């Protein structure tokens, strides 16, 4: 019997059996799952704080956990606390520093990996065994979510690439080529054509503000050019001051005239706004834009399709920045560790809840397990019928182009990425070019110096 063949309650019985044995030898009596009892329950009471990013999927995850709590810990209530993207780093760091972390965090892999390397998270290999090590969708590995020195610290919540969203009605109207065939030059020309021919519409939009979104958008271009911040295989030497970085920055500078003028202050929300309100014909974004367009701007939803990013003409890479977002459990000052593990296990082994999680904001959060990704239940959603290619691009075909600042070009886990994003180094580098009018070479040198400072300050983590 594989783990997925078991019901969540069967898995819980395994846990109870283990805890029963532990209790029998006088260990772990405080865990409160009494041995072999049909009414084995946690007697703990209170609210289990769970942090997640904005969006309904965190709530869907927590709903599953509350279902577990109703049966197994009636005194507990899991409660999601939504943290705005641009506030996630500060909120996490201040609360961890104040020693009042939540009991469970759903967070992007760069920050998860920083916390993991800092020793702030609980290893979860025992949970991975129960969830099923062979369940992951093709093209990903457990360490993409967060493993360090041989231990897994993060349980997958979803993967979430940003792609190129294109208004196909505009593309057809202007006689542009199929975006699937574009390289950077084609993208640039398309943006230019749209800007020139469509009044009050920018050709393209990406975030250029000093924020996380710009970090993520620029990272995709950097990786497509073959550039990186650090060399994971060489003691994380800084390799940012490179022709590849200059190439990516130059491309951003070339694209800027065809973006909304306000893009230099745009973050996540503003890029979505720009697309959904028709201010731009193309944008870099995750699936959330389509979800919101479906609710607020039906014609734009119907006209928009997602594509893997345009190829870098030199490397042919189409790298995206994939948010391998996972659940992680703070190891310190966390009074509900056992309950969180059980509740998370319940959610992770329930097809119904995992499908609900993905359906809560289609196609923003992609399934991480094969049995979910290939299930009929997942496909039973209107978006799958109206935009099968777009949904499949987000969910499956994008994985071949996955990259992340926490695992650059998938060449090794990088625990420094959280610090990089905390200080908005990539975004500031971009702003040196688009606001301060520095040359890409100067900006790359500045960024490299900042990255070197991060490496120097945190060399302890890299040993």
């Amino acid at each position, binding site marked *: 019997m594989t783990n997925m063949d078991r019901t969540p309650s069967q898995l819980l019985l395994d846990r109870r059996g283990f805890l029963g044995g532990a209790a029998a030898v006088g260990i772990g009596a405080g865990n409160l799952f009494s041995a072999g009892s049909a009414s084995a329950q946690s007697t703990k009471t209170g609210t289990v704080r769970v942090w997640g990013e904005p969006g309904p999927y965190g709530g869907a995850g927590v709903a599953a956990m509350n279902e577990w709590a109703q049966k197994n810990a009636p005194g507990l209530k899991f409660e999601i606390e939504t943290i705005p993207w641009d506030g996630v780093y*500060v909120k996490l*760091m201040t609360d961890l520093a104040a020693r009042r972390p939540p009991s469970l965090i759903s967070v992007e892999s760069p920050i998860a990996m920083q916390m993991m390397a*800092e020793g*702030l998270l609980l290893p979860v290999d025992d949970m991975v065994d129960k969830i099923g090590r062979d369940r992951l969708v093709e093209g990903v590995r457990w360490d993409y979510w967060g493993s360090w020195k041989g231990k897994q610290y993060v349980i997958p919540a979803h993967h979430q690439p940003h792609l190129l969203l294109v208004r196909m009605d505009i593309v057809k109207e202007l006689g542009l080529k199929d975006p699937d065939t574009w390289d950077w030059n084609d993208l640039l020309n398309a943006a230019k054509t749209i800007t020139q021919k469509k009044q009050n519409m920018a050709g393209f939009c990406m975030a250029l503000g*000093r924020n996380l979104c710009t970090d993520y958008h620029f990272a995709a271009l950097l990786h497509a050019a073959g550039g990186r911040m650090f060399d994971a295989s060489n003691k994380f030497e800084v390799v940012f001051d490179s022709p590849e970085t200059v190439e990516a920055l130059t491309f951003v500078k070339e694209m800027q005239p065809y973006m909304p*003028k*306000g893009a230099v202050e745009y973050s996540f929300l503003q890029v979505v706004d720009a697309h959904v*309100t028709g201010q731009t014909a193309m944008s870099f974004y995750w699936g959330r834009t389509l979800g919101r367009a479906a609710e607020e701007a039906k014609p734009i939803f119907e006209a928009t399709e997602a594509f893997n990013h345009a190829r870098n003409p030199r490397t042919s890479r189409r790298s995206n920045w994939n948010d391998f977002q996972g659940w992680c459990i703070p190891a310190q000052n966390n009074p509900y560790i056992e309950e969180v593990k059980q509740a998370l296990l319940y959610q992770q082994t329930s097809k119904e809840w995992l499908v609900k999680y993905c359906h809560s904001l289609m196609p923003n959060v992609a399934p991480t397990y094969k049995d979910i990704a290939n299930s009929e239940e997942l496909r039973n959603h209107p978006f799958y019928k109206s935009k099968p290619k777009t949904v499949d691009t987000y969910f499956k075909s994008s994985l071949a182009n996955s990259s992340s600042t926490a695992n650059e070009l998938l060449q090794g886990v990088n625990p420094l990425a959280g610090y990089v994003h905390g200080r*908005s180094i990539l975004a500031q580098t971009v702003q040196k070019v688009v606001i301060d009018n520095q040359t890409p070479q100067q900006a790359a040198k500045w960024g490299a110096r900042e990255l070197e400072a991060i490496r120097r300050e945190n060399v302890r983590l890299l040993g």
Partner: protein
Amino acid sequence: MRRLDFLQSDRFVGLLFIAPFVVTAIVFMVYPIAEAVRMAFFSYNPLRPDLVSYVGLNNFEFIFSDPLFWSSFSQGTIWTLLSILFQTIFGVGIALLLHRKLFGMAIFRGLLLFPYIVPTVVIALIWRWIFNPEIGVINYSLQSVGLISEPIYWLSTPTMAMASTIMLNVWKYTPFVVICVLARLQAVPLELYDAAKVDGAGAFRRFLDVTLPQLREVLIVVIVFRTIWTFNKFEEIYLLTKGGPGTSTFNLAVYSFEQSMASLRLGVGAATGVVMMIMLMIGSVVYLRVAGFGNEEKST
């Protein structure tokens, strides 16, 4: 017996009354300041509380060699000086208008306090909408009356972002200046104006020779307080521009926050706070001396 006398004395009652303030000040002011000064000499990453180490003056060396510290200082100075200048001009002007006895003036005075009462976070978020280049009310209004043809990107260029943060600060805190000045205006003896009129002084002359000298003391105090509060201001800038675009609206408070929270260098953040405190102390003393605050009382 002596102890009983003391417990029944006015002196003891006075101490009792002042005790809550002293305790509160020690807990919420003296201790944090002392802790910040102490922390300024340590390297402290909040995620690694076990690795705190004494670093001497390294944190100060770091900030004094950081170009961003100096640009934050100069931007913060510009933001403070221009904010105070406009607050003072508008504050005095509005107070003079409100000093007239007109129908409905009491209601208007009450409404004037609105920006000062509303929490900064609410105001900053509202102003973000107001400044929105596409859907903001300012651009809409200016375009409607034909003053501009293209939207102004209020927060997207360094100069405009600085101007916008100053506008917000002036709008929010001018009422404070108005209240202080108005209170003083109502205490100016009318005989002074009557005498000036008899001497043939016009309205402008009366303002220069009677009103302004009477406002001098209150304006000195208001300017000192507003300078200290504005120079230290964090939330308006952070909520409106996050210090951007780029770092063009960073002031030292935002710099300190970024060092402490984003870069996790609490020691550097604390050192910045200590430097700010020293700068403001020196600036305030020099200003009060130059302005001659309290000289009149001494001479009488």
